[in-house]
Structures are given as structure tokens and as C-alpha cells.
């Protein structure tokens, strides 16, 4: 029961905040960034499994390094962020798959699709604290990020330091991707960010409904996924994603016209 509760709590916080952050990512047309960043976690996860330390720290290291690299490249080259993310992720995936053969076989599945059932109490506390922190930061800068998307010139006139907020935002994505690795591994973080946000977009009016709708849907998908995982002994991360997808398909019925 105790382990189940830890898994449930972690999944709710990760799923909810990922959905919330995903609402910003979709608005900024960065929905696919979560995928490559998740893949960037692979070399870190592989290293953590080979050298027997917490996969969260391994993932965090490589994702943060990758995020900083993308940010620096964007300032230097002004190339689209999505293209730069693709470049950095390709290198990261290649590195990850070079290291993975050195892990044990049963660890491979954990690296690729996650395993929340093994999360410890300490990791759960860390997950909750970090998720709350990310939520508070993103809530505080949400309007500034949207303003930048409307017009970078207008944002600068309003004294919004677009570089600073983009950096903070990227760091939050990187941190949350590292957390999602426990739930869905290195292959599927994008789903936790994107699907709840896309679903919420179909029936919400305005950014408040949209962002909190995405948060709620992310959390609910996680709850249902964890319960189904316990009942049918299937990987929780995959079930969460499929439930989230089902919600999206249902939401199409309620999609608001322009």
C-alpha cells in the first residue's frame, strides 16, 4: 500500500505539472521539444543504471546540459529552437544507445519506458517539491511567455527580458523531463506534456481554462493509469499515455469553433 501511494502521488504531480507546462509549450509551438529532451535523458539514465545511482540525477544532468546547449545555440545562431533541439537530441540519443548495452537487460525497459513502482519515499518527496516549484515558477512567468509569443517587440517594450524568461522556461522543461523519466522513461515524456494540453485546447476558452484544464487532465490520466497498472500489472507510464490519448479523442467532440 505504501509503495502504491508513493507511485500515485508522484504520478499525479508529474502528470499535472507536465500538462500545465505543456500548455505553454504548445502555445509557443514547442510541443515536440519534450520528445527530444526526453531522449536527451537517455545517456544520463543509461549512465545512472550502469553506475548504480538515481536515474533522476543522471537524466537531469544530461537534460540540463542539453537545454543549456540549445539555449546558447539559439542566441548564437537565431535558428528555430525546434531545429536546434533536433540537432542536440540526435547527438544525445546516439550517445545513449552507445551506453545502454552496458546495462542489465531488465534495466533496459526501465530506461526506455520508465517504472514508477520502484520510486522511494525520498524520491517522492523530491518529486513533489520540484513539481510544486516548477508550477510556481511557470505560473509566475506564464503571461510573460505568452506575451513574447504575441510579439517579441511588444514584450521588450513592456520590459520583459525575453532571453531570461526563455532560459527559465527551458530549465523548467529540462527539470520536469528528468522527473518524467521515472514515469515514462526516456522515449515518451513528450506525451505527458503535449496530450493533456492538446485535449484542454479543444474545449477551453482563454489561457486560464486552457492551462488548468491541461493540469487537471494530466493529473487524472496519471491517477487512472496508476490504478489500472496495479489492477492489470502493466507498465503505468504506457497506460497513462493511452488514457490521455483517449481523453483527447473524446475531446474532439467538444472542440470549440473559432
Amino acid at each position, binding site marked *: 500500500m505504501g509503495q502504491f501511494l508513493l507511485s500515485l502521488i508522484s504520478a499525479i504531480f508529474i502528470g499535472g505539472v507536465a500538462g500545465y507546462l505543456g500548455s505553454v509549450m504548445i502555445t509557443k509551438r514547442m510541443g515536440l521539444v519534450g520528445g527530444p529532451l526526453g531522449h536527451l535523458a537517455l545517456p544520463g539514465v543509461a549512465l545512472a543504471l550502469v553506475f548504480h545511482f538515481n536515474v533522476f540525477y543522471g537524466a537531469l544532468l544530461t537534460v540540463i546540459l542539453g537545454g543549456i546547449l540549445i539555449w546558447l545555440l539559439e542566441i548564437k545562431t537565431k535558428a528555430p529552437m525546434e531545429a536546434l533541439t533536433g540537432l542536440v537530441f540526435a547527438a544525445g540519443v546516439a550517445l545513449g544507445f552507445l551506453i545502454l548495452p552496458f546495462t542489465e537487460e531488465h534495466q533496459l525497459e526501465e530506461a526506455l519506458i520508465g517504472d514508477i513502482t520502484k520510486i522511494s519515499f525520498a524520491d517522492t518527496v523530491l518529486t513533489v517539491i520540484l513539481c510544486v516549484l516548477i508550477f510556481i515558477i511557470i505560473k509566475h512567468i506564464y503571461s510573460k511567455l505568452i506575451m513574447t509569443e*504575441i510579439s517579441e*517587440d511588444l514584450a*521588450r517594450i513592456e520590459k520583459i527580458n525575453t532571453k531570461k524568461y526563455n532560459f527559465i522556461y527551458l530549465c523548467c522543461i529540462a527539470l520536469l523531463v528528468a522527473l518524467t523519466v521515472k514515469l515514462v522513461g526516456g522515449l515518451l515524456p513528450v506525451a505527458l506534456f503535449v496530450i493533456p494540453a492538446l485535449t484542454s485546447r479543444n474545449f477551453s476558452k482563454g489561457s*486560464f*481554462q486552457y492551462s488548468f484544464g491541461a493540469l487537471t487532465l494530466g493529473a487524472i490520466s496519471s491517477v487512472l493509469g496508476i490504478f489500472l497498472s496495479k489492477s492489470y500489472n502493466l507498465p503505468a507510464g504506457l497506460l497513462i499515455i493511452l488514457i490521455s490519448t483517449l481523453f483527447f479523442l473524446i475531446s474532439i467532440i467538444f472542440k470549440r469553433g473559432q
Partner: protein
Amino acid sequence: MEEPILQVKDLNVKFGEEEVIRNLSFKVRRGEFLIVLGPNGAGKTTLFKAILGLIPSNGQIIWLTKENPKIGYLPERLSQDKFKNLPILVREFFHFKEKLDEKIFNILQEVGLVPQEVLNKNPGALSSGQFQRMLIAWSLISEPEILFFDEPATGIDIGGEETIYSLLEKFWKRKNLTILLITHDLDIVYKYATNVLCLSKKEVCCFGPPKEILTPKALEKVYGTRIKFYEHKH
């Protein structure tokens, strides 16, 4: 006319190797309605962006205000299509600048909009006239001292255009604003401008009250072709 609020001295702007603005100098007085006129590619938008610090430039931009100037700005081509793809309401757009709903209500009414009709809509769902009025209200809500409008009536029909400029004139007079505005429309220049700044191929061709300086020869110099302007007096 009042004291200067802005002085531009020897402004130079380059994009790569291309000189877009060369040694441009002029003053703007408080309360002025200055229209910047010139053909496409003359550097009008570049001038605004350089003054506002949005692009690098050489020369001096001197703000002659007691504190940091309160600036309102409407860039060119801030299109409704951008808003259509964003899950945002008019109310939330105004909340970027002003949290008090009462102030938002008042400014929307002042620009001729019915707040209850627009606040809970996406800006992309407004008519083009409503959208432009909304943008003007947005630029005014933080009570700026000086406003920069880059072709504020783009995409509006003639009737709507007249309304937009009448609205700007109303606020200009009532709130003693300083307005810098870019337009191609000579009718607007003659009707509203206290001074006009003509740009052509990086240089200032003329500066002063439109009736005094916008001679056919001056217009030919600006546009590179003969232009005659017939003022309709009704």
C-alpha cells in the same frame, strides 16, 4: 508648442553592410503629432525600432523626460491571425498590463467598444475594426506619455480607417499625448499632423508642418515620382 520630449542625433542604422538610416537628426516636442512619411524601404519602421531600442544603432537617442518615459507602441503587422492560434481572451490580454477590470472597461468604452461584447472573446474573433480599437485601447491603458504607431490602420476599410485616426486625434488632444505615427496616407498627414518627417533612401527629405513643406517638389524627392495631392474640402 511645449519643450522637447525626444531628441534624435546623428542616428545611423545598418543591417549587415546595408545602411538603412544615415545621420538622421530631429526633435520631437511634447504634445506633437508627428507623422513619418516615406516610400517602402525608406527606413520608417527601422527608425521606430531604433528609437525604442529594439534594434542596434549608432548615434544618440535622448529622452528629455524627468524619469524613464512611459511608452506605448503598436508595431506594424500585429495581425489577428497570431491571436487566433493562442488560447487567450481580450480580458487576459489586457491583464498583461492592467489587473483592474474597471480600468479595462473604461478604456474599452473610450475607444467605442462594448466591454461585455469583447472581453470574453479571443482577439482573433473580433472584426478588424474592433481589433484595431482594442489594440489602441491596449496601448493607452498604461497611460503612456508618448505613443509610436506603425501604420495603425493597415487592413481596415476607408470608413474604419477614418474612425481609427479620429480616435487617435481625440486621445491626443484629451490626454496631451505625443504621437509618432507612420502612414502612407497624405490625407491623414494634412488632417492630423503638427509636423511631418519625410524619409527617403535613408535620409531626411523634409521636416516641418505639412502645409508648409509638402510641396510637389518635396513629394517628388520623397517618392521619386511626381505626386499631386488634391485636398477635398467638404
